[in-house]
């Protein structure tokens, strides 16, 4: 351990599987992730309850790896936890695999691990397995993380992108486009200063509050890459329905709107990392909204539109002058490496 403290950077030896690898795991990962299910064995052995599990995986390569409102560690927990939550599954266990660039500062790795632990605790999930590889300088950009998770499905809840029905209300759980906007600004390519923080957050609590309020929810999807606009087109396509949107009802933070105005971007197509798009019968919407607005990450939840039987596969927006306009299809100009 003494050697480690003098050693400020990750080296190829840390990934070689020997003593230094063990030291890295002890100092960074065991120290932060410690829990009864996180053992030194080849695989975690876990109890399984009756019923069904949800199972998912996600890789994270965001650049820059730290940004206002989070870092790649927090993001890597939120991404997988939220994917499970969208299926109505309570996140139980996660694994995480790191690919670290030679020369990466150990202090930064510790910050990332600490953020992962904090976020996992909040989401009520345990990190039970991991892997560490070190790649040569320039072979990866700082650090890449892959997380895999399992969750327990809630009985009586079944959501899918194919379940949206005419008459459903379309709800977003908060203002849109924060994460994409934050990353855009954090790259400093535009020399625009704006006080924008990522919406990156673990959303199991948000989902639980909704399903406690109503089991009659058709679709829950997290609006990550491609933003809310892309999700709407995905659902319209999968469920073979039309969607009508009221642009005035879409919550957008003033600073995000300002940046989008300057750069000619549509906030509906900027990534979120802590926002859900929810489809539920209009009769359920008031109870769902009431529950959402009590939550820490969904105080600005709003109904932004409705599902219709007309124009299947298309999203039509009522614009600020009251005219109807097609929401453009997701394009190829999405920002790369946002998550």
């Amino acid at each position, binding site marked *: 351990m003494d050697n480690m403290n003098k050693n400020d950077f990750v080296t190829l030896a840390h990934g070689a599987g020997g003593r230094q690898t063990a030291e890295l795991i002890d100092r960074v990962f065991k120290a932060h992730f410690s829990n009864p299910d996180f053992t030194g064995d080849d695989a975690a052995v876990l109890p399984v309850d009756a019923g069904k599990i949800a199972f998912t995986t996600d890789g994270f390569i965001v650049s820059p790896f730290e940004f206002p409102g989070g870092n790649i560690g927090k993001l890597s927990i939120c991404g997988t936890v939220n994917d499970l939550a969208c299926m109505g599954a309570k996140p139980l266990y996660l694994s995480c695999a790191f690919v670290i660039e030679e020369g990466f500062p150990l202090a930064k790795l510790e910050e990332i691990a600490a953020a992962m632990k904090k976020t996992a605790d909040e989401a009520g999930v345990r990190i039970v397995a991991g892997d560490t590889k070190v790649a040569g300088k320039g072979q990866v950009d700082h650090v890449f993380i892959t997380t895999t998770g399992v969750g327990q499905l809630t009985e009586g809840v079944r959501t899918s992108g194919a379940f949206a029905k005419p008459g459903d209300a379309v709800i977003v759980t908060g203002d849109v486009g924060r994460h994409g906007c934050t990353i855009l600004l954090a790259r400093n390519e535009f020399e625009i200063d704006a006080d924008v923080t990522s919406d990156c957050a673990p959303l199991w609590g948000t989902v639980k509050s909704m399903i406690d309020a109503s089991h009659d929810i058709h679709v829950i999807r997290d609006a990550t890459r491609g933003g809310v606009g892309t999700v709407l087109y995905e659902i319209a396509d999968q469920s073979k329905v039309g969607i009508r949107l009221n642009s005035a009802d879409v919550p957008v933070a003033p600073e995000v709107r300002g940046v989008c105005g300057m750069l*000619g971007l549509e906030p509906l197509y900027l990534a979120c990392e802590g926002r859900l798009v929810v489809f539920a019968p209009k009769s359920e919407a008031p109870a769902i909204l009431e529950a959402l607005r009590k939550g820490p990450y969904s105080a600005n939840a709003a109904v932004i539109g409705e599902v219709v039987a007309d124009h299947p596969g298309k999203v039509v927006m009522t614009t600020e002058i009251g005219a109807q306009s097609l929401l453009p299809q997701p394009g190829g100009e999405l920002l790369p490496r946002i998550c």
Partner: protein
Amino acid sequence: MESAKQIIDSYNGRKLRVMEVCGTHTHEIFRLGIRRILPPQIELISGPGCPVCVTPAGYIDEAVMLALEHGAVICTFGDLIRVPGSEMSLAGARSKGAAVKTVYSPLDAVDFARENPDKQVVFLAVGFETTVPAACLAVKKAAAEGLANFSILGANKTMPNAYKALKGSADAFLYPGHVNAITGTAVCEGLVKLGVSGVVAGFTADEILTALAVIIRLSASGEPFFRNCYPRVVRPEGSPAALKLMDAIMEPCDAEWRGLGVIPMSGLKLRPAFAAYDARLKFTLPPVAGRSNPACRCGEVLQGKCKSTDCKLFGTACTPLHPVGACMVSNEGACSAYYQYGDILNG
């Protein structure tokens, strides 16, 4: 007092053709769905206002030549990368090994040149009076620093002579507020004497609707007219500092517009004192006569002679992902706007 929307809604006069000549206007008009709330006698035409749309194929050929034959690093605004040249776009050149870098400002290209003294860096200077000052600033900075590896491939354009060339395509122009913020309003006032009407318009829903309502009111007399409907940004004298900078670095020249041909004195080129920063001279490029796809009707679209949807290629061979014509490339192009925001039920 009647609101702009009431004036527009209640219009029952003669047919009015209004041409917008700014890509941002085109985009906003489509995004807001303004065409759908206009009475049938008012027709909006998307004129040559998007810098990418008016860039001729030959210009792309020159950029490809600089990249592939001269090994220059091409620095450009992102939109231009997918514009088709005679043989290939810059994206195509990149797949053949060309170095093409997206920048957000010409000054980024100067920075890149300074940081990479072993590379020849060429900035693709397209755009109207709104972007010309930044290109001039880049050249001025490179000259002050004595950067020998920076140059620009110029295709900057100015609007005044384009309005004259387009006279008759429309009853009134929606003048581009951002351009007038630089140039001021004297040019537009001068155009009134030539029988060209128009109003300077801003870019919000209210500003565009107000400008259209003013056009309706002023058209009633039948006399040519001008109004500045964007006074919060556009001053009569424009931006003297930007105009002075432009005049110091560049001078007027004839320019080719995609689809419109050569319009006399509608372009800008570097003054002789800055010839060292002119990529055409520096690399002694031969004259290039670009060829566009003959089926593409971008040129007619830009003059309001046909709608995007009248083109056989529209939505079939030509889509935003696989553009044939320049108007389908940029977000601000008329064809792209038609495609993206197009007909709700039949599109």
